[in-house]
Structure formats: structure tokens, C-alpha cells
């Protein structure tokens, strides 16, 4: 029997998380939405999705009493612990804060501030865009031929040494970061067709190699 890694998706009362769960299942995981801390801790990997405003997502994490757990799991992943994938606002939450919701704390794993997209472009970026990246990174392996993914965001994290993928929108926008087993994408892999599924499969491979 093939190994189906278990992936727990943080269910903290925001937006539509079902699509992330469905895509993870399609990619080969046993995926579930949960706000149960023990289930999150026991899964082979976790996913922190996020849609809408930064402040609302951060507050919802606090209200569902998952903020501290998310921070500690992300921090551990960054030093090689259980794999953690942040998606969209779930990526932005890894930072200290965002200009979208001044005064609201992010998880603070990455030491920068999320800022509004600049340039003469429509906000939000709501479209497919092409990734420019290092295709040898484990997150992006095998997607060389069609690196188009779907974005919906008005804010983005600055480019730092953790950035592994970019897209061109007004300026060069930070599209993905990775620190050890802490991965995050500004785009929505669960909505990016086959390319997105390939990225989710890469995340599941990380879970497998992490386990063995």
C-alpha cells in the first residue's frame, strides 16, 4: 500500500478551506480540516491557509486559540521539524506584521513587514502569473515546463534571502519562501491546476522523507 501522509489544515474559521483540503487529497494526502491541537500536532505535516485581510486572519487564529501553536510549529519547521506549508495570507502571517493591518502581530517567524504591492497595476493581483525561480528547490521540482500559478493578493512580503520564487507584477513580487521544512507560497497551489498539484505533491514528498 502506498503511504498517504496525513496533513492537518488549520481550520480557524476563515474563508474557504475546503479547496485546500480537496487539492491535498487529490495530491495523495489524507487531509483534514481541524482546530484540534492534538490532531495538528500528530499529523505528518500541517497547512496554514488564509484568505481575506491579514488582521482578520491573525485575530481568527487568536480567537480559535491556535496562534501560539501555529507560531511554535512554524518555528520548529524552520529548524527542520515537522513540515509546515503556509498559503497566501498563511504565508504573510509568518512575518512580523502587515501594513494592511497595522498594529496586528503576525507569527513573527520571518523578520520583515508585509507591504502593499507597488506599481501601476490593479490591486488586488487576481490572475495567473509565471513564476521565476530556482526549479531545483524541492518545492519547485518538476514544474519547469509550466510554472504558471494563481494569485489573489493586494499585499506581499518583501524579497529576502528566504525567497525562492518571484512573479512580475508592478515590481518583482515575492511568490514563495522556504526555510528548511517551513514552506510558504503567496499564490494558491490548490487553485493552480496541475502545476499547483505538483507543488503540493512536492510538499507531501517532504513529509515522506521527513518520516523515513
Amino acid at each position, binding site marked *: 500500500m502506498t503511504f498517504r501522509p496525513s496533513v492537518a489544515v488549520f481550520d480557524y474559521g*476563515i*474563508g*474557504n478551506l*475546503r*479547496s485546500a483540503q*480537496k*487539492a491535498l487529497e*487529490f495530491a495523495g494526502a489524507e487531509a483534514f480540516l481541524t482546530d484540534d491541537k492534538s490532531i495538528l500536532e500528530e499529523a505528518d505535516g500541517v497547512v496554514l491557509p488564509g*484568505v*481575506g*485581510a491579514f488582521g*482578520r486572519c491573525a485575530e481568527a487564529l487568536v480567537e480559535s486559540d491556535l496562534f501560539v501553536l501555529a507560531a511554535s510549529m512554524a518555528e520548529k519547521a524552520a529548524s527542520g521539524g515537522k513540515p509546515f506549508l503556509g498559503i497566501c495570507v498563511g504565508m504573510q502571517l509568518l512575518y512580523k506584521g502587515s501594513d494592511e493591518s497595522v498594529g496586528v502581530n503576525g507569527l513573527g517567524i520571518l523578520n520583515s513587514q508585509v507591504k502593499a504591492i507597488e506599481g501601476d*497595476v*490593479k*490591486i*488586488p493581483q*487576481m*490572475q*495567473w*502569473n*509565471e513564476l521565476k525561480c530556482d526549479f531545483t528547490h524541492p518545492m519547485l521540482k518538476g514544474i519547469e515546463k*509550466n510554472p*504558471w500559478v*494563481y494569485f*489573489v*493578493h493586494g499585499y506581499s512580503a518583501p524579497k529576502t534571502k528566504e525567497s525562492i520564487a518571484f*512573479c*512580475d*507584477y508592478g515590481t518583482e513580487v515575492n511568490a514563495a519562501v522556504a526555510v528548511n521544512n517551513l514552506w510558504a507560497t503567496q499564490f*494558491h497551489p*490548490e*487553485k*493552480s*491546476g*496541475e502545476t*499547483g*498539484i505538483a507543488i503540493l505533491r512536492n510538499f507531501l514528498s517532504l513529509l515522506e522523507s521527513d518520516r523515513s
Partner: protein
Amino acid sequence: MRVIRIIPCLDVDKGRVVKGVNFVDLRDAGDPVELASVYNQQGADEIVFLDITASSDSRETLYEVVRRTAEEIFIPFTVGGGIRSVEDARQILRLGADKVSLNTAAVLRPDLISDVANEFGNQCVVVAIDARRSDTTSCGFEVFTHGGREGTGLSLLEWAQKAVEKGAGEILLTSMDRDGTKDGFDIEMLKTVSQVTSVPLIASGGAGGAKDMADGALLGGADALLAASIFHFGEMTVPEVRKELLKAGLTVRGA
């Protein structure tokens, strides 16, 4: 980089895809999930489902369509028709849709837009506007509701601006005069909105061929191009539209 989206639209009536002309004379065009899957394989950038009956007894059928689609298709999809409350929106999103489209209920109660946007984010809220040419409003276009059956006296320009102020993440603008006619998008109508609003504009109503689609973006300023009948009845495929957009100098996914 502005990348133009190609969006097949499926008008759903009692669980089947239908298509009419000028909002009447409906013809059966197939199973919504099967069609969505075909468009997904062709490389459609998004899918829109509009439940055109939106009566209470058809809700369960629509939910089933949304649920089945979410299992099979991993590109963004929007669902509209009969969404009157935050709870209606939640139900649709919980089943796996990515965005909800609001129309009549938003005209009747504009705060519905902000309510849904505050709950799920602006990116989740598409405000669909059905409009036709009219001398009664200052911009020359009047907004209609109830599937195009009722005039509101509202000016398209004012309503579009108000919808964006209230938190619409996108405007889906349908020309009732052009709907199903294949005479091309109403470019003037598109410009009326694209020149003043900051959010993405989806052109709808009248695309008869790939060139019409390109014109919607080039001349009308639309960010996304929606069509129904020409896709359903096999007159045009998504790759053909993509090729035409590229030829016109526009950027599309995968090229």
C-alpha cells in the same frame, strides 16, 4: 504583468447547463461538472457557475454541482445565483467554491457586499451586473435585476462605483443587449466601468469569436473575458481564444 483570464461561464438550471439569447429561449448544453472538467483540460483560467433559477428547491442541486466540481477541478471557480446572505455565501464556499457572485440581492441591499467581504475577504466577492443601453440614466446604461427581468433605474456607472466602495473584489459586467447574440462585447459599456474602477473587470455578453474576446481586453479594458454559448456548442475552444489573444499582443497563462 497583466495576464488576461479566459472564463467559460455555465448557466445552471435545475442541475443542467443551459444557454439562451437575450436571457430567454434556453437550450440544454450539458452536465455542469463534465463541462467544467473539459474547460479545465482546455486550459480555462477560471470557471463561473450561475444558478439562473435560484429558487429554493434548486439549491440542493446547485450544492451538489459545487461539491462535485470541487473534487475534480483545481482552478478558481465562482458560484452565483440566489445568494442573499452571508450564510448563503458561507454554504457555497464551504462546499469548495472560491468566490461568490452577488447580483440582485446586492442591488436590493448593498451592505450585503460589505458583509460578505468583511467575512471572507474582497477577493471572494464578485459583483455581477446585468445592464442594457438606456436613455434614462446619465451614463447611458441601466442596471437590471432578477435575471434581467426588472429595471432598477440605477445608472451602471454609479452602481459599479458603489459596489467597489462596498468591497467588491471584481465586477462581472454582462450586456443584456449582447447576451447570446455573438455580436461582440459592448465595448462602450466595458469602458464605462473599466475607466473608473480599480478592481478587475470581467467582460460578458456577446462574444461570438476569438477576435471579440481580444477586443474586450484591448478596447474595453477588461481583465477577464467570459463566454458561454460559443464554448458550450463547440464553436470555439479555450486554446483558440488564447492564441488570438496572444496574436493581439495580450499576455495569457502559459505563454
